[in-house]
């Protein structure tokens, strides 16, 4: 299967083409094709996984792409265990979301188009995962950006949706500048953009550490944009304007994890360059903290989840930054499942009550039990409660941070874990328990149809058990399958597990007190810490900051340049054009006022003389000819004499 693994990616592309060109009006056929394609991809990925289990590889397949003398840029497939894990994650979540969308998007006038975009996204994401060269990664990186743009703005009649799409595209594109520049620097020093060739160069110390730091940080800039890390995280919350399945697939489980994936792919740089590693780790930690703090106070169900996503991605970056290749990618996998589940659950709720505001929900677990139960499972998992999958992966991260001796980062990470469990359960309690705060909406709510709840159940299953492949006591587990350089098996740190569980539980308990028992009034707490509360509610004022500086500057600058273009350059061109005209007028004026004025007397004289001389002009051609001949004679005479 591996040697034909491009088929996995191409199937959804075929589906996209089919839907766009032939079935753009046929709801059933379009969704059928898309789902079939992604399911086949999933099955093939499973086969590929088994092959990788037998032979880790990496398997490399190269294709010629750009070939010109002195410069060649092949594309390739790089198939190692991480690839096959990612393939599996993408195809599973994608399949679930496809099926879920059948129910969620039911009746939408652009239903086939939605599925075509999903297919296109799946293709790009699989391509990104399979790609074995940085340029290939970049290509698919941009393509997933495009599909993200298209899907965020899917309901483009809403201004907020189309704005959000644009914002997402441009913000991530800003990060991609760094990526592109990183590629240029890499090519300049390494003369290759191929994963394997580059790795071997790095291993043989053929590239200096300073250069590697530059490359690492530049490539990480791309990851910052795509994985919504500080300072380019502002697009992700807005991206929630897209349909919820899209948020689940793209903006929670897969595409945003691409940045993490890319960072994992440059692990060899991180190992060499301490500066790059620390940049990544600190940005990750800061993002995790910042996003978690914002999530504490948000009232839009999807926005809470969005900030939670940012925070969790920060975790992964932190893990990778401290060299935790296994823990970062492991958390990437488990997070994909439970975050997708959370989003799909949220979608199910929104589908039922037609609002995003948690203040208008409450008590929904009676109406929609499956959604509620799966949502609880996912929340427990993300909070890191034993023995759900989130517990194992989060614990791996703590372990990695601690082993490298970054105690400050460890404290931040643990603190964020507490915040995570608090805001997740705040969300759960406000949504599913207590009294309905909007009776009308509550009355009309209902459990979602089966094609929406089955994916929830599948993902809930995975949220519980997927992490078990990484149980530290397991000898043939995740860490011996996906590893960097050589498989290393770290002994578990029991006390750390206990601390993290205690922190998570205390977060849950606090949420329980505030939002279930109401023994602490959240409003009063908010009043008490009003400045902080407002600060968090306004998302640290990042949007305002960017609006006030960068965006304002761009708008100002474009106007200035346009005025410059019309007012200076074009004016100058026209000036030169008019200069000729002006010149002639000037001379005319000169003629009339200066020469004529000054020499008027001479003018009269001239007129008098010319009055006589004009008699010469007889109009007789032969007179003129006579004068010509006279001239000729005189000329020859002059010459001969």
């Amino acid at each position, binding site marked *: 299967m591996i040697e034909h693994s491009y088929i996995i990616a191409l199937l959804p592309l075929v589906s996209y083409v089919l839907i766009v060109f032939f079935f753009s009006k046929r709801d059933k056929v379009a969704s059928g094709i898309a789902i079939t394609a992604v399911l086949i991809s999933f099955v093939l990925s499973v086969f590929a996984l088994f092959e990788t289990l037998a032979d880790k590889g990496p398997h490399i397949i190269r294709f010629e792409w750009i070939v010109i003398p002195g410069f060649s840029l092949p594309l390739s497939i790089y198939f190692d265990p991480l690839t096959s894990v990612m393939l599996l994650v993408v195809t599973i979540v994608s399949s679930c979301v496809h099926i879920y969308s059948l129910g969620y998007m039911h009746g939408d006038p652009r239903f086939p188009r939605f599925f075509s975009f999903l297919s296109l996204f799946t293709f790009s994401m699989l391509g990104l995962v399979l790609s074995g060269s940085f340029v290939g990664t970049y290509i698919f990186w941009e393509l997933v950006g495009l599909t993200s743009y298209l899907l965020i703005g899917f309901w483009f009649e809403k201004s907020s949706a189309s704005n959000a799409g644009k914002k997402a595209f441009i913000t991530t594109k800003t990060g991609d500048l760094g990526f592109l520049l990183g590629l240029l620097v890499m090519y300049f020093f390494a003369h290759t953009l191929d994963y394997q060739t580059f790795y071997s160069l790095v291993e043989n110390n053929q590239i200096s550490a300073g250069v590697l730091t530059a490359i690492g940080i530049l490539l990480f800039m791309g990851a910052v944009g795509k994985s919504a890390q500080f300072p380019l995280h502002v697009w992700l919350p807005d991206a929630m304007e897209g349909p919820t399945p899209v948020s689940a697939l793209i903006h929670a489980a897969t595409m945003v994890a691409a940045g993490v994936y890319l960072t994992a792919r440059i692990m060899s740089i991180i190992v060499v360059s301490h500066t790059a590693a620390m940049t990544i780790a600190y940005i990750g930690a800061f993002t995790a903290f910042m996003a978690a703090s914002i999530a504490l106070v948000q009232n839009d169900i999807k926005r809470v989840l969005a900030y939670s996503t940012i925070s969790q991605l920060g975790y992964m970056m932190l893990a990778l930054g401290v060299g935790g290749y296994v823990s970062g990618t492991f958390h990437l996998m488990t997070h994909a499942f439970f975050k997708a589940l959370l989003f799909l659950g949220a979608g199910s709720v929104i589908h039922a009550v037609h609002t995003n505001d948690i203040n208008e929900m409450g008590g929904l677990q009676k109406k929609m039990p499956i959604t509620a139960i799966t949502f609880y499972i996912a929340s427990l998992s993300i909070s890191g409660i034993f023995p759900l999958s989130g517990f194992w992966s989060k614990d791996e991260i703590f372990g990695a941070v601690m082993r490298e001796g970054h105690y400050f980062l460890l404290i931040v990470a643990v603190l964020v874990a507490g915040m995570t469990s608090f805001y997740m359960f705040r969300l759960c309690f406000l949504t599913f328990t207590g009294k309905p705060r909007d009776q009308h909406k509550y009355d009309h709510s209902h459990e979602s149809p089966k094609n929406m709840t089955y994916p929830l159940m599948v993902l809930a299953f995975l949220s519980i058990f997927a992490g078990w492949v990484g149980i530290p006591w397991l000898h043939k587990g995740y860490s011996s399958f996906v590893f960097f350089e050589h498989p290393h098996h770290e002994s578990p740190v029991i006390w750390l597990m206990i601390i993290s569980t205690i922190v998570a539980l205390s977060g849950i308990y606090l949420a329980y007190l505030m939002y279930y028992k109401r023994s602490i009034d959240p409003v009063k707490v908010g009043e008490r810490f009003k400045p902080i509360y407002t600060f968090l509610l306004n998302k640290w004022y990042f949007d305002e900051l960017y609006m006030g500086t960068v965006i304002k500057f761009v708008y100002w600058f474009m106007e200035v340049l346009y005025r410059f273009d019309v007012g200076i350059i074009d004016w100058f061109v026209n000036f030169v054009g008019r200069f000729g005209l002006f010149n002639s007028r000037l001379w005319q004026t000169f003629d009339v006022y200066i020469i004529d004025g000054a020499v008027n007397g001479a003018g009269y004289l001239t007129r008098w003389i010319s009055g006589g001389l*004009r008699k010469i*002009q*007889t*109009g*007789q*051609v*032969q007179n003129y*000819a*006579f004068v010509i*001949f006279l001239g000729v004679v005189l000329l020859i005479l002059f010459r001969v004499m």
Partner: protein
Amino acid sequence: MPTVDHYLVLSGLLFCIGAFGLLTRRNAIGVLMSIELMFNSANINFISFSKFLTPQALTGQAFAVFVITIAAAEAAVGLAIVVLMYRNFDVVDVDYIDFMRW
């Protein structure tokens, strides 16, 4: 055998006769005919130079061809003008046509 000077004197005479006609004939057609005479004298010059000075190159003869062509063109246009003039003014006298003065 005649020398080059013979031919040049002959062409000079012919030219002068033509020029005289050009300066004095009233009839426009006569003027044109005089011009043709001058063309011919120029051609005699060309050809005699061709024969006596550059017998291999035939440059003079080639130019004579051009002169003849130009002469033909001139005759065509000139006579057309004469016809037009006649049609408009009922005369072909060049000294009648003196509207182009001050």
